């Protein structure tokens, strides 16, 4: 029913409002997850509004969005926990409402807040999961041992989960999701509540697993998107506002590739004038630093790199500079820009 071989044509006709931005190198095959016009209403509240996207093997897709944006609801529909009001979710080519059990077999899912049966120990909990996932005898032991090592919970296997710290609980949840080595992993805020070392570890784990899997994570830690995701979508008010690579999103930051220099305040106006004379410079902005100097933010025109020009100009004019660096821009800024400006939905994202 979907023809992935001709994404351009599909986009051109706008037939099913699908967003066809695909990462480099992945063209026609291995689409594991396909959402098409997925919509969920809770009474009068529109929680997820007509979301279409697809995820292929090898991709780590990050769901970004403010709290209450519809990230968890989308994941819940995808994992068969709730049913969509309209639209379809297909996993491995199967429709989730028609083949729920078959799909659940292939998905590893970490729900929001990583709920677990608190009165069980990780050992018995994972044993239960392994059994219900169809493993038998020694295979159960082997699976549990492997996954326990992966998420590093070996030391607490015999303590009731209720008595464990937040970080351990989250990792028990992760172990539950990864136990059967699923081809699709869906994790709702996998690193929430972990300390920086554990976060690093989990991100590494996700990267390692990504090669032969389709992975979706949700997060509101934007650095996480840069660290692990090959693609990111931004969701707000239930709508898909952007679907792109983290790098491309970053390039939408207002200060992306801007050059920052710090100069003596007395000379700042003159320097500013000089720099604005450069062709590639779009505009400059000045702000005071804490010790009374002036920082100039020199923004390039779209797609231009100006660091070289700026430094040559400064040297040729003999202007002393206390510091100089190139700003990458922050995803935070992009995120704020996109989520606050709800109008960027639709056309702009498909470009």
């Amino acid at each position, binding site marked *: 029913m979907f023809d992935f071989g001709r994404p351009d044509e599909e986009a051109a006709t706008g037939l099913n409002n699908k967003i066809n931005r695909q990462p480099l190198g992945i063209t026609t095959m291995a689409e594991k997850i396909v959402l098409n016009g997925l919509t969920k209403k809770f009474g009068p509240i529109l929680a997820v509004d007509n979301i279409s996207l697809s995820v292929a093997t090898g991709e780590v897709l990050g769901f970004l969005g403010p709290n209450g944006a519809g990230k968890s609801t989308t994941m819940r529909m995808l994992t068969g926990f709730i049913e969509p009001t309209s639209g379809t979710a297909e996993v491995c080519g199967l429709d989730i409402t028609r083949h729920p059990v078959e799909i*659940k077999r292939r998905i590893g*899912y970490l*729900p929001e807040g990583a709920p677990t*049966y608190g009165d069980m120990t990780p050992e018995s909990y994972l044993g239960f*999961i392994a059994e219900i*996932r169809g493993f038998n005898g020694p295979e159960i032991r082997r699976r549990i041992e492997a996954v326990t090592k992966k998420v590093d919970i070996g030391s607490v296997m015999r303590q009731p989960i209720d008595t464990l710290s937040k970080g351990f609980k989250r990792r028990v949840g992760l172990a539950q999701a990864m136990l059967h080595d699923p081809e699709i992993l869906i994790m709702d805020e996998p690193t929430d509540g972990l300390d920086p070392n554990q976060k690093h570890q989990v991100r590494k784990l996700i990267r390692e697993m990504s090669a032969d899997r389709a992975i979706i994570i949700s997060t509101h830690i934007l650095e996480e998107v840069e660290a692990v995701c090959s693609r990111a979508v931004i969701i707000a008010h239930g709508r898909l506002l952007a679907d792109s690579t983290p790098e491309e999103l970053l390039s939408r930051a207002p200060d992306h590739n801007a050059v920052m220099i710090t100069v003596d305040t007395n000379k700042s106006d003159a320097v500013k004038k000089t720099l604005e004379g450069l062709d590639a410079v779009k505009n400059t902005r000045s702000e005071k630093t804490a010790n009374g100097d002036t920082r100039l933010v020199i923004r390039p025109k779209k797609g231009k790199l100006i660091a070289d020009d700026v430094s040559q100009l400064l040297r040729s004019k003999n202007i002393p500079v206390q510091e100089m660096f190139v700003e990458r821009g922050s995803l935070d800024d992009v995120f704020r820009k996109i989520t606050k400006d709800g109008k960027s939905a639709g056309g702009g994202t498909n470009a």
Partner: protein
Amino acid sequence: MRNIAIIAKREIKGYFTTPLAYIFIVIFLAMSGAFAFYIGGFFNREQASLATFFLYHPWLYLMLVPAIAMRLWAEERKTGTIEILMTLPISTSEAVLGKYLAAWGFTGIALTLTFPMWITVNVLGEPDNGVILAGYLGSFFMAGAFLAIGSCISALTKNQVIAFIVAATVCFLFTMSGLELVLSFFRGWAPEILVRTIASMSFLTHFGAILKGVIDIRDLIFFGTLIAFWLFANVIIIDLKKAA
């Protein structure tokens, strides 16, 4: 089948890793004994039978079974583990049956632990053990019916207190529906057929019939049908909540 057994096993283990199981069993044994001896006058009647023991089971279940049933689904919803359970590769009916059978099995364990009563009457006299067996069977089925009602109602809410109160009330109506107290309320306006239907729903009537020692298959079918009906409703409710 395998999935049902795995879920039931996990549930049963869960009962015994918390104080819940022990508290329930102790209270059930203490109260069933107390009712039989003090209120029922077990010794004064000088009869080698467990009639006075079984007589109070409906009232005991009325309080204790909703307490077991209230957590079945409400707790899963409250703690969010329902999201784990329902995204595992199992069907809704397997989950419902697994949890229900564990709870029913657990009440069966509690009921079995009243065997000293049975030994006592056999030491003191020569009771009709067939009648006693029928009593146990009837009591077990009645507990199952209470549980099915409670399980279904537990699926409606994430608040265990609400689940308990509503389930206890519904169980109370089913228990009492054969008594004049309830029937006279309907008799004034409802057609005879409805009144008779309500009367036929009475747990007391059916349980009483079994206690006489005549295991009429219709009484067991009554409880069995009731269990099936409420569990079916249980599955429907969970599926409906998915789509809500």
